[in-house]
C-alpha cells in the first residue's frame, strides 16, 4: 500500500503520483492495478461520416455546374445529385445503431424506389410523365415484392422476429398496393408486376391477420399505448 504524506491517505492503486494532490509518491511494486489499462477508442465511423458529409456537397455543386455549363445534353445532374444523396442516406441508415432493422428495411425500400423513379424520369431529354414506365411498371413493384418476401423469410424464422417485424411488414404491404393504384390511373403499362406485388401484399396481410391476430392486437396495444 502506498501513502501520500501531504494528504495523509493510503493509496491502493499502482501509481507514482497521488491521485488527489498529484505529488510524487514512493511506488509500491506489489500494488494492484485496480482498473483496466486505458487506451483511446477508435472512432473510425465518425471520421468516415465526416469525410463523406464534407465531400458530398462539393460533388453536388460540381455536378450542377458541369450540367449547366459543360455537358448540357439532358438533366443528368439530377440523377447524379440523387445518387450522391442516396449513398449518403444509405450510410446514415445502415450504420445508425439507434434505428432498428425493420425501419431500416422500409427506409431502404422507399429510398431505392425513389432513386429508380428519378433515374427513369431524368434519363432522357424530354421531361414528360409518360417516360415513367420501367420504374413504376417493373422495378418498384418487384423491389417491394422482394422486400416483402425478405421480411417474410426473416419473420417466420423465430417467434421474436415475428413480433418485431409484424407491424412494419403490414406497412410495407400497404406500400405494395401503391404501384397498382398508380397503374389503374393509367400512367404506365403493363400491369403484371404490380398485380403480382399487390396480390403478394394482400396474401401476406391475410396470412398475418388469420394466424397472428392476437399478436397484431398486442403489438397495436404496445405501440400505441398512451
Amino acid at each position, binding site marked *: 500500500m502506498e501513502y501520500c504524506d501531504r494528504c495523509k491517505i493510503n493509496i491502493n*492503486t499502482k501509481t507514482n503520483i497521488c491521485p*488527489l494532490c498529484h505529488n510524487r509518491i514512493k511506488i509500491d511494486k506489489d500494488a494492484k492495478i485496480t482498473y483496466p489499462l486505458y487506451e483511446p477508442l477508435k472512432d473510425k465511423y465518425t471520421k468516415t461520416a465526416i469525410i463523406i458529409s464534407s465531400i458530398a456537397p462539393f460533388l453536388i455543386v460540381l455536378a450542377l455546374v458541369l450540367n449547366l455549363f459543360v455537358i448540357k445534353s439532358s438533366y443528368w445532374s439530377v440523377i447524379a445529385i440523387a445518387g450522391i444523396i442516396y449513398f449518403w442516406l444509405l450510410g446514415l441508415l445502415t450504420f445508425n445503431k439507434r434505428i432498428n432493422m425493420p425501419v431500416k428495411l422500409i427506409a431502404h425500400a422507399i429510398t431505392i424506389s425513389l432513386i429508380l423513379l428519378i433515374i427513369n424520369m431524368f434519363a432522357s431529354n424530354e421531361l414528360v410523365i409518360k417516360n415513367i414506365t420501367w420504374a413504376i411498371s417493373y422495378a418498384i413493384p418487384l423491389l417491394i415484392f422482394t422486400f416483402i418476401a425478405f421480411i417474410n423469410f426473416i419473420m417466420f424464422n423465430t417467434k421474436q422476429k415475428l413480433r418485431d417485424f409484424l407491424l412494419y411488414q403490414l406497412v410495407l404491404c400497404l406500400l405494395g398496393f401503391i404501384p397498382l393504384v398508380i397503374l389503374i390511373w393509367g400512367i404506365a403499362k403493363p400491369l403484371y408486376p404490380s398485380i403480382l406485388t399487390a396480390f403478394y401484399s394482400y396474401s401476406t396481410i391475410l396470412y398475418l391477420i388469420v394466424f397472428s391476430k392476437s399478436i397484431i392486437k398486442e403489438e397495436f396495444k404496445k405501440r400505441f*399505448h398512451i
Partner: protein
Amino acid sequence: MGLTPVFQLISIMFYIIIYKLSNSSHKLLNLVYNTRFFCYNINGCELMNDRKQENWYKLDNAAKIYPAIIGKKDSGVFRVSANLNNFIIPDILGQALIDLKHRFPSMYVKLKKGLFWYYFEKNERIPIVKKETPYINELIDVSKNNNYLFTLFYYNNRISLECFHSLCDGYGAIEFLKAIVFRYLELLGNKINSEDKVLTINQKVMEEEIEDSFKKNFTSKVIKHNKVDKAYHIRDIHFPHYYNTGIISGKINTNKLLFLARKSNATITEYLAALLTYSVYESYRNDNFKKKVKPINISIPVNMRRFFNSKTLRNFSLFFYTSVDINKRNLKFNDILNKVKKNFKKEIDKDKLQSNLNSNVGAEKNFFMKITPLFLKNILLRIASNILGNSLSTMTLSNLGNIDIPKSMKNYIKDMKIILGSNYSQTNSVGVISCNEITTISFSRTIFDTCIEQTFFRFLAKEGLSVEIESNMIENYL
C-alpha cells in the same frame, strides 16, 4: 405476353403459402397459445398471484426521461460493483446471470419505441458477461449487448453491473447484483444461506417487485414548491473524449464515519452532503469572491420505498436539493452542516415527497403530453432536462446506505461500490455505499481537476479517519 406467366406466378404463390401454412402452423399455434397464456407465465416463471401479466411494461415515471436525454456525452448509466475475495470465473458468472432471468423479469428486457411512449419488452436473447473496459459508465450499445440495457462486467475479483437508469434505481441494481453474487457463489459450490436478505432463483416473482410504484402511489394533491435557485457549476478543463471518466474512491470504516457524523448530531448522508458542499466551496473560493455567485446545490436522491411501503425493483426514487449560499465570507464547515441539516429536515417529509411525486406523475398524465408523438416528446424532454435537471444542481450525492447481506456471504464479499454517471454539464458525482462495515465513497468526474476530492478526503483524514484511495488514474493517460 399472355396471362399464363401471371397465373403461374399466382399458383407458385399459393404453393408457398400452403407450404408455409403446413410447415409453420404448429409454430404459429404455439405462438398464439403462448401469447394467450402468457398471463401467468412470464419467462416461464410463476407470478405470486397468477394475475394477468403482459410480456411488456410501460416505463415508470422516472424512467421516461432517460431514453430522451441520453447520448454519448450523457449515457444515463450507473455502476454498482462488488469486490469478492477470489478471482472471478466468467463462465460461472455467465451461468448465474442466465439462471436469474426468471427471477428478475423487469431487468431482462429491451427498450422499444411506440408512437407515443417507449416501452420495455421481454428479451429472449442470452445476456452477456464482459471483461471490464476502461470506459466507465459508457453509453450501452444495445446492438452489441444482445439488446439488454444492463451489462455485467468482471475484472480480477470485481463484479460490476452497469445499468441504464430507466431499468431501475440504485436499490433495484443492488438487489440484482446481490442476487447475481449469491447465485455465483452458489454455483461455485459454496454453502450459503440467503436468510431472506437476497432474492434467489427458488422464490416466486412478487407482483410488488415489478409494479410501477409512482403510478400506484399517485394522488392528485400537490403542494406549492419552493423555487430552487440555479446552482453554481464547477468549471474546469474537460477530459478530451466523451468516454473519459475519472474515478477516485475512498474506503472508510463505517462505524468510525458514523461516530464522526453522530458527534455533529448528523446522519452520514447529511454529514457527507455538508462536507461535499464545503469541499466545493473551499476548492473554488478564490473564484467565488470576485463576484456574486450562485448557491451550491447538492442533489440528493431519496429512496421512496422507505415512505411508501414499496418493494419495487424498478425506479422509485425522487430527489431534493440542499442549497447553501456561498456569498458569505469565511464559511466554516459547521455553518454549512447546520444549513444542510435544516434542508434535510425540511425536504424529507412524506407530504412533501408525495407532492413531488404527484407533480411528476401529473405531468406525465397531462392529456397533451400523452398524445404528443414520441419524437416531439424527446425534443421537449431534452430541453426540459437541460433547463431543469442540470442547471439546478452543482453535484449529485447518492447514498445507498448500508447493504444488508447474509452472514454466510460476508466471508466472500469484501466491499461494494457505486459509481454514478457524470457528464459535461454536471462534471462531478458522488456515490456512497456501505457493506461489510466499509463505506466506499466514489467520485466520478469529467474534468482534470481533483481539488474537491482532495479537500474532501483530506478533511476526513484530518478528523482521524483512515482513508484508502483507489483511482483509475485517467489523467496519466490523456
